[in-house]
């Protein structure tokens, strides 16, 4: 790889190459600089030939983080974005931790939020030191030297900044370099800025983990239990032996799968198909979807296992005093992430330990998983970070599942040969680590004035975090906060709110899925708000705004995106004949998003999504075009799944297996998406996930204008058709 080791970098020679200004941080987080990397963690390098390299501590899955972090460096160094090269950081939790996680990882839409000041500070230090070096050489005050477009300039003197890289590296690092005034930003917030990773993704040279081919490498695929919780009884590989390229098959020590080794991927798939296996399903989840649905719905009708917010008696009292009570149950299915690149990674022996080749969200988790299986300390496990062909949460899991599998396959093969673990698309769709299936039951009370007076909300589903190494961060008093996020922290003024949670327990594996709990809670909250507005005979936008009146910054920002989306959608005017509109707004991961979905057609002959108007407040917009792209992506992801996607079961086996039956959004499904970004100087928050939660309910609310109220998903399972 990596992202872009420029030709310049390869060609640089002699003195120029030798002079480098490296800026980074010491282990105690203070700024440090030098000619090399001794004693510091590099974040930005300026070489003698003027090449600037940003070291990217996050992984790139399309969300645009390489562009975003390079933008921060470009801004502080006053150079165009295309003059900043990017390089992925190695896996080293001490050096490149996510400041919001404590481990090195990408997720929860935190990459920009935790990196913004760190990268700007490093860039500003580089600028300050280069200016100081030039000022000293030219014998002028530092205030007379400017760094403009890669050149140091003072009165009648000018020199390319690389000339001073070595001299700058010898200087004292400023303790707190002065950051640029946001009023002078020219790269941050520039709508003309284009992403940095287009080139290799357009000409086919971008290296994804799936593209790794090492000398002597073999391919491993897994034959897993067809039901979750099944254990291997026996296998017979006599037919597999006839497949050209087959090497051998072996049971994993966990008895959860048989690993099939082959010389190439196709041979591995063919040999696996030829394998006969026998399983013990006595501890498996052998239910079908109907039974699972009944079980979950039963859980939200009885006393909750955990109180997640408030007191049930208070909510009941509030509802008893209500003029009108609206009650609704919801059932949402399991969902697969299905990133375009099926899961894979390669482990190879290295002189000191092993190297993992992967595009993983959590290098630290991967190192720990490999360490546990292989008995090698984490500092002997290098991670070569490659582009990830999508993830949506899947290229990490609470138990690092595919890294454990890869490590077992590597170890069972003797550890002397590179082993590439490959999941087929069928493995991906049937292999678990799903967005949990959930049931909700909500009772909302309205007062005589049409305001909400009480809200009793029950949620049932599997916890993502319980039993994982992250449990202590996320679970308190039995409540996995990601099961109820978006409900118990709703920004609406809701007096007397009770939230009860019941955990379901099954061997079906679950995982964070783009927007995690918000992926279901926003659907329920924003559908209920719409139903309540309807019962109160109030406009859905006005009704929401009437419950955002405390004057808090949080409420004001949600109200702000609601108003902006409504204005841009022409909400106060009648839609075109035959068109209906629905609205939803939700805060997640520190970002506020409102969306208006406009549809035509009817549920029998087929609905058409004519347009989606999106308003987003993500603090300082770093790359407006990347933000727009993430909104388009998140809206498409949200809508595609509520329209057509589900993982269902028959006698414990997943009914779907690939894209024909795990239906994905297609190019004709959404005719237009418009994104409007709220100007802001607040610290930037994430944009990878927050566009997803409001999309589904906005569509559902548009359908409900003159059609059914959809409370079970996907919509196509409820006799709703799309053209």
């Amino acid at each position: 790889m990596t992202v872009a080791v420029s030709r310049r970098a390869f060609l640089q020679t002699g003195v120029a190459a030798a002079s480098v200004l490296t800026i980074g941080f010491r282990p105690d987080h203070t700024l440090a600089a030098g000619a090399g990397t001794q004693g510091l963690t590099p974040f930005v390098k300026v070489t003698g030939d003027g090449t600037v390299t940003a070291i990217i501590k996050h992984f790139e899955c399309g969300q645009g983080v390489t562009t975003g972090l390079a933008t921060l460096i470009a801004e502080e160094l006053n150079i165009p974005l295309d003059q900043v090269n990017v390089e992925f950081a190695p896996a080293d939790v001490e050096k490149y931790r996510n400041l919001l996680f404590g481990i090195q990882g990408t997720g929860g839409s935190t990459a920009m939020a935790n990196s913004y000041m760190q990268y700007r500070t490093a860039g500003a230090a580089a600028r300050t030191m280069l200016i100081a070096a030039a000022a000293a050489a030219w014998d002028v005050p530092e205030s007379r030297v400017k760094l403009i477009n890669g050149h140091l300039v003072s009165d009648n003197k000018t020199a390319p900044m690389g000339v001073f890289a070595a001299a700058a590296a010898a200087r004292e690092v400023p303790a707190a370099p002065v950051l640029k005034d946001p009023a002078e930003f020219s790269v941050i917030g520039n709508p003309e800025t284009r992403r940095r990773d287009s080139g290799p993704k357009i000409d086919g040279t971008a290296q994804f983990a799936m593209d790794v081919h090492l000398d002597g490498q073999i391919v491993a695929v897994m034959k897993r239990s067809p039901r979750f919780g099944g254990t291997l009884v026996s296998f017979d590989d006599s037919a597999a032996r006839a497949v050209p390229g087959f090497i051998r098959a072996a049971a994993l020590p966990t008895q959860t799968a048989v690993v099939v080794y082959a010389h190439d991927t196709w041979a591995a798939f063919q040999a696996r198909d030829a394998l006969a296996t026998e399983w013990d399903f006595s501890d498996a989840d052998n239910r079908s979807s109907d039974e699972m649905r009944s079980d979950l719905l039963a859980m939200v009708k009885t006393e909750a296992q955990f109180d997640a917010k408030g007191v049930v008696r208070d909510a009941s009292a509030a509802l008893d005093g209500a003029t009108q009570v609206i009650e609704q149950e919801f059932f949402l299915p399991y969902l697969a992430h299905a990133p375009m690149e099926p899961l894979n990674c390669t482990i190879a022996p290295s002189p000191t330990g092993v190297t993992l080749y992967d595009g993983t969200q959590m290098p630290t988790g991967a190192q720990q998983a490999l360490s546990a299986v292989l008995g090698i300390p984490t500092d002997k496990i290098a991670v070569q970070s490659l582009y990830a062909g999508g993830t949506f949460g899947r290229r990490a899991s609470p138990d690092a599942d595919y890294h454990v599998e890869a490590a077992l396959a590597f170890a069972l093969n003797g550890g002397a040969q590179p082993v590439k673990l490959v999941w087929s698309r069928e493995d991906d769709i049937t292999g678990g680590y799903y967005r949990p299936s959930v049931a909700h039951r909500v009772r909302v009370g309205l007062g005589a004035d049409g305001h909400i007076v009480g809200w009793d909300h029950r949620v049932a589903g599997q916890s993502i975090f319980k039993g994982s190494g992250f449990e202590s961060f996320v679970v308190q008093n039995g409540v996995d906060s990601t099961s109820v996020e978006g409900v118990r922290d709703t920004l609406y003024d809701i007096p007397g709110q009770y939230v009860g949670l019941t955990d379901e327990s099954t061997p079906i594996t679950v995982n964070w899925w783009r927007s995690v709990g918000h992926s279901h809670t926003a659907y329920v909250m924003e559908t209920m708000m719409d139903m309540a507005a309807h019962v109160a005979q109030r406009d859905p936008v006005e009704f929401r705004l009437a419950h955002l009146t405390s004057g808090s910054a949080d409420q004001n920002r949600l109200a702000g995106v609601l108003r902006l989306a409504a204005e841009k959608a022409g909400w106060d005017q009648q839609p075109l004949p035959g068109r209906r509109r629905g609205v939803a707004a939700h805060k997640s991961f520190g970002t506020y998003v409102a969306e208006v979905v406009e549809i035509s057609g009817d549920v029998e002959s087929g609905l058409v999504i004519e347009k989606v108007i999106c308003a987003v407040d993500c603090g300082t917009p770093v790359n407006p075009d990347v933000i727009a792209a993430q909104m388009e992506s998140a809206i498409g992801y949200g809508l595609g799944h509520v329209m057509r996607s589900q993982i269902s079961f028959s006698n414990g086996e997943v009914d779907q297996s690939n894209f024909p039956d795990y239906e994905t959004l297609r190019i004709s499904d959404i005719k237009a998406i418009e994104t409007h970004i709220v100007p802001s100087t607040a610290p930037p928050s994430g944009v990878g996930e927050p566009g997803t939660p409001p999309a589904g309910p906005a569509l559902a609310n548009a359908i409900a204008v003159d059609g059914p109220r959809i409370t079970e998903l996907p919509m196509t399972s409820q006799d709703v058709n799309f053209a």
Partner: protein
Amino acid sequence: MSNQLTVNGQVHDIHMHGDTPLLWVLRDGLKLTGTKYGCGVAACGACTVHVDGEPMRSCQVRVADVEGAEVTTIEGVESEVATAVRQAWDEISVVQCGFCQSGQIMSAIGLLTENRQPTIDEIESYMWGNACRCATYQRVRAAVRRASDILEA
């Protein structure tokens, strides 16, 4: 077992079984990894290549069946249309994760080669089989239109 395969103008001796899908011969045999595996059942289009100039899903083509044909992959595609498509893809920042984009681009080149001024309906119909889980569709549509404008300029 050996087949001769012409890829991007070069002739290769292929020592993989004749039933092996072209996709895996390209990726694992020739290390031409720009062509992607996304589904293996012609449901996603990530593996789209040109066979004698026609877009085809390489996961459904046996290598033995393309002996004597000209196979073109993302690494080797060159034409006025290809240049326009790449320029448009870059200008509009279509890509996100990028994994499906080789296939998107090979399909778009196929479309614009046979129809230089496709309507939106024609674009959606032709490109329908190219799935993108990042949902870059709006930009794919715009980029095909942009490439069409570049070609007509």
